[in-house]
């Protein structure tokens, strides 16, 4: 659904995106994570045709965004991290304006009603957006971004400033949009929030793509296990590398994270094997937060080189 190939974006003296290539499949929710200054916002704005890259290609649903940004916008929805609303207009008029500017044919009433009720704004249609709370304004902004039923939705820090209840509702909405076949690219610094709905993780660091993978639960029987132990990393790495069904091992400072293709009995056998080999295991089990563990593992793995 989103194809990025060899994307390069320069600010004066700084290469913000350095040959980024990735393919985001239809119906996935990709968490775009990385430290501040990694190039996340720049990548999102390039995908949306709001910034012109130096070189490279971006295609959304087969449309070249650099060549035909206007056409691609029919298939794209975008929520900026610092979004704004027309404060003097009612929610209904904001949504109607968004529908009209995306070239949707009328009548708009049913579409506005459906979109608003999906975002829990059904009772607020007549209210001026300037009088809404931060959470409700966020919902209106998302409603504007999805009213034309885009195939791709790009959201930059969508949960910033929202209370836990609103964040939970937002996660439910994103899952529902995904179920409808929409592809989402979401950036956030709150990894626990992304965990609730992300199916894939894309890690950017210093303008480069350092990891792009499916998260736990996305590989059928595969499960992500976390192993904490005392002592050196090397013997653990050697042992895990030799075990059947183990892959994607990431080891750093007494912690191993890996994908394991096996049931609970196989998992118990693996634990016995580890203990039998003299590994001083302190914790062993399903990774509590796959995305967070994966991200931290990636970052800590790369830290010495940086």
């Amino acid at each position: 659904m989103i194809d990025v190939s060899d994307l390069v974006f320069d600010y004066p003296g700084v290469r913000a995106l350095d040959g980024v290539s990735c393919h985001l499949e239809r119906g996935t929710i990709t968490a775009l994570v990385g430290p501040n200054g990694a190039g996340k916002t720049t990548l999102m704005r390039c995908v949306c045709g709001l910034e012109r890259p130096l070189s490279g290609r971006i295609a959304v649903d087969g449309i070249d965004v650099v060549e035909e940004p206007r056409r691609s916008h029919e298939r794209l929805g975008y929520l900026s991290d610092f979004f704004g609303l027309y404060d003097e207009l009612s929610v209904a008029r904001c949504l109607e304006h968004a529908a009209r500017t995306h070239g949707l044919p009328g009548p708009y009433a049913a579409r506005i009603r459906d979109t608003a009720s999906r975002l829990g704004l059904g009772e607020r249609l007549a209210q001026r957006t300037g009088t809404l709370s931060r959470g409700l304004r966020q919902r209106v902004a998302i409603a504007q971004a999805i009213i034309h039923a885009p195939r791709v939705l790009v959201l930059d820090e969508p949960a910033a400033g929202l209370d836990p209840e609103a964040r939970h509702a937002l996660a439910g909405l994103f899952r529902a949009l995904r179920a409808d076949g929409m592809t989402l690219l979401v950036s956030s610094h709150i990894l626990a929030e992304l965990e609730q709905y992300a199916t894939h993780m894309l890690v950017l660091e210093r303008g480069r793509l350092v990891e792009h993978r499916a998260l736990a639960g996305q590989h059928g029987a595969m499960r992500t296990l976390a192993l904490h132990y005392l002592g050196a990393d090397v013997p653990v790495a050697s042992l895990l590398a030799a075990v059947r069904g183990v892959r994607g091992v990431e080891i750093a400072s007494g912690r191993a994270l890996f994908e394991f293709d096996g049931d609970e009995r196989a998992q118990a056998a693996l634990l016995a094997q580890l203990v039998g080999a003299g590994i001083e295991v302190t914790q062993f089990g399903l990774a509590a937060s796959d995305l967070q563990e994966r991200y931290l593992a990636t970052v800590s793995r790369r830290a010495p080189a940086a």
Partner: protein
Amino acid sequence: MNAELRRLLWLDFTGSRAGAMLMAVAAIAGLGWLLDGESFAGTTATLMLASFIALTVAWGANQVGHALLDELRARTWDQQRMSALSPWAMSWGKLLGASALPWLAGGSALLLHACAAAPEALAWKLGLYVAGALFIHALALFGALLILQRRAQAHGSLVLRFIGGLLALAMVYAFFQRERGALEWGGHAWPMLPFIAVVLAQATAWVLLGCQRLMSEELQVRTQPWALPGWVIWTGTLLGGFFVTADMPWPARIGIVAALAVGVALAAAYFAAFALRTDPMLPRRLMVAVARGDWSRAGSLLPPWLVALVCAGLAALLVQLTWPAAGSLFTAFLDTRTTALALFAAGLRDLFVIHALGSSVREDRGEIIALLYLALAYWLLPGIFALAGAQALAALLTPLPWVLPARALPVLALQAVAAIALAAWAWTRRVRPLTAGAGDRS
């Protein structure tokens, strides 16, 4: 209906506001009626025309400018940029939507003016007022787009009001002082009012095209650089027409237009260099496009100052081919052929130096340094040399293209080559070495 027009009508064109504006106009008309001895006559006509200028021209220009700059302040511009509206639809939607209420109020004042004014050439005058208002609104939108391009809305309001007010006053002055009579253009006499009306309508069309081009840039829609050369030809022709006589041969006419086009194109190049945002990565984008043989993209990437400079160069060449060799009035006091080339060389030097300076410092400081450079090159250094009696040194280091152009030309040409090399060096120094990271804007 245009979506942007509709949104602005929702925002501004409410029943209460429209009613209040009409009542205000009616009150002013009532005052005029009383001052005219309970009739509609001269005082009423003047008051209503002043109301039209205040409401439609000045207030309308302010509204049009704000329709765009408010989007930046309210952070809604990204949403608009993501819309499927074309640059042209966005432009005219904003132009007419933001000025709808000013047009209602000022338009009713203009109708009352028509009832009270003398009937002499009234239709042409009314047409002129309407065309003038449209021209100033288009200019306000153009100015707002320039400000938007630099993402500097803070000073936008003041600048727009200043420009709007100044032009409104100039228009009023022109109308009251020169509304009768005829003028010479292209070797023929033309009635003043229709001539101004037609020129104003054409100028409005050019400004609207300029708006469309700037809006295209904002909305990431590519355009090819034919509008600026077209405008240079139109302006050169318009100005040249005032110097052409009925018996002048065609090559001489073209020569005059070309000579004026050199000046017009250079003025446009200097204006573009200062007013338009220069993407520091542009040379690299251009190189990438050229290396791939993507000429359409390369054409769309050409910066306006460079396009204008090329126009100036072509016009200077045309002057060499068409300017009368001897005997004409113009040749008598000016070596126009050499002057055109010297002016082009000076423009080449200045614009590449400005570009080099802009590439070497922070964006907001580039303009000040460029202005300092121009003051040094054209005023301070020549003045110091003159005071020191070092005319030879002045001719060698800071030759003015219009003073002894034949002596100035080789020096200016050498300086232009050096300036191009300097710009290339400054750009290379700024862009390289590239360090990855720090890409987030937030």
